[in-house]
């Protein structure tokens, strides 16, 4: 459906997007992840024809950005970050204006606006000025704007940023509902959101793709680093360290400040395929320490994200 090849964008001498390539299949929900300034918004802006690529190609179906940008714009619904809309317009008038520019049938227009108001929950604010709306409602008007001509592709830039938890759930619900039949590309820096809504995740950092795949495959491919947490009493850190250090695979033992008094909280980082929890337990059983807690940190997307995008 969408083919991106070697896409590059410079702002003067600063390279925001550095030769990224990916394909998006029909019906896929793709999450574009990355820290602030990674090049997510720039990538989306090039996909929607707002910015011209400095180099590389974007093809949407049989159209290429450049010669057929206008045709592509007709097929993409785009919600820019924080939904910048005309502040002085009434919601209904704005949607009508978008419908006219999108060249909807005059006869179908009111029905379509009604339908979108229903879908995006806009009915209570249809006759308010956009400038007066709360951020959540503004975002929904933006969503209705993007959905106006029932586009095959929907591009959403940080659709839930700045919303309260209830609004986030609502917007996600709408996205998932739409995503059943449409191709969606959304950018976010909220990892749980990507995990919850997207079929596939692309992580970019410094304008380059550092990971691409489903959450599952990314988790599997990302390193073998594991983290164990342990809480002990009647023990001191130096003796714990000297006992555990010889265990193969352990790379780091740290003393984490414990919230409870007289306990020792330890964080163990290890690189290993094997499960060494048994070994550690056997060592501790031989001592007179009391083990209060012992758990393995689930390999979360959060952790992978930090690993991939942290400086150095």
């Amino acid at each position, binding site marked *: 459906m969408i083919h991106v090849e070697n896409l590059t964008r410079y702002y003067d001498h600063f390279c925001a997007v550095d030769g990224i390539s990916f394909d998006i299949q029909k019906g896929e929900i793709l999450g574009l992840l990355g820290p602030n300034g990674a090049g997510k918004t720039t990538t989306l802006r090039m996909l*929607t*024809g707002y910015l011209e690529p400095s180099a590389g190609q974007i093809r949407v179906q049989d159209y290429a950005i450049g010669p057929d940008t206008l045709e592509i714009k007709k097929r993409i619904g785009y919600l*820019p970050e924080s939904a*910048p809309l005309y*502040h002085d317009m009434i919601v209904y008038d704005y949607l009508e204006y978008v419908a*006219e*520019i999108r060249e909807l049938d005059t006869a179908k227009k009111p029905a379509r606006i009604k339908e979108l108001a229903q879908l995006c929950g806009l009915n209570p604010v249809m006759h308010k000025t956009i400038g007066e709306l709360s951020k959540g409602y503004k975002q929904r008007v933006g969503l209705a704007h993007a959905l106006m001509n029932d586009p095959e592709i929907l591009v959403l830039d940080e659709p839930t940023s700045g919303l309260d938890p209830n609004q986030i759930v609502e917007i996600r619900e709408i996205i998932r509902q739409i995503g059943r039949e449409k191709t969606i590309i959304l950018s976010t820096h909220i990892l749980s959101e990507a995990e919850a809504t997207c079929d596939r995740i692309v992580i970019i950092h410094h304008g380059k793709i550092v990971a691409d795949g489903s959450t599952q495959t990314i988790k599997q491919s990302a390193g073998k680093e594991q983290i164990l947490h342990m809480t002990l009493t009647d023990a001191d850190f130096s003796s714990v360290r000297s006992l555990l250090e010889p265990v193969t695979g352990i790379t780091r033992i740290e003393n984490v400040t414990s919230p409870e008094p007289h306990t020792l909280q330890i964080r163990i980082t290890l690189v290993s395929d094997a499960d060494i929890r048994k070994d550690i337990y056997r060592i501790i059983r031989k001592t007179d320490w009391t083990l209060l807690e012992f758990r393995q940190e689930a390999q979360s997307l959060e952790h992978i994200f930090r690993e991939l995008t942290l400086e150095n």
Partner: protein
Amino acid sequence: MSPAINIFKREFRAYIASPIAYIVISVFLLITGWFFFTPFFLQNQANLRSFFNLLPMVFSFVVPAVTMRLFSEEFSVGSYETLMTLPVTFTQIIVGKFLAACAFIAIMLVPTLLYPLTVSVLGVLDWGPVIGGYLGALLLGGAFSAVGLFASSLTRNQIIAFIVGMAICFSLTLVNQMLFFLPKSMLGFFEYLGADFHFQNIAKGIIDTRDILYFISVGFIGLYGANLAMREKC
């Protein structure tokens, strides 16, 4: 229907809905009214010379005030991005906005029709120069709107857009009154550049293609400049 018409309608409605528009109209009518009627009774002549003499000067700051928001507001609110990702071309956006400004200026001129009506009651008015004057005013308003639109496309700050637009319009108006500073060989060229020179020709009731061509050229250059500025932002 072309999207340019939708953009025109939206911009025009935005003008009518905003209080700034009415302030600009009031200021325009106040200034032109004062400067027209003050010498009118002293001169005791049934014509609109003093109104049309002043019009290029007044337009030099009124028109940029009308056009300053056209692009700058979109840049600062960010709605430019939503607009640019709708299926519209640069030309459609520029034409839509330009026509909205022209229409607004035309509406601003409507109340001034009371001046010739008043004069025609008081004496015998030659309608030729009046019709020429209003035609010239529309051409001048259009040319300055294009300049103002260009100034607005340069910046997200409406005040800067206003000042840049005003500076260009004032220069165009005044250039043929500064001619005595220039060597003789360049007089013709700079006189041709002057908006006031061409406007006064038309306001005399002489409709010459050279004058009309001048306003069309200024307008075209302004709109083309806006197009270049938009392309630069891609």
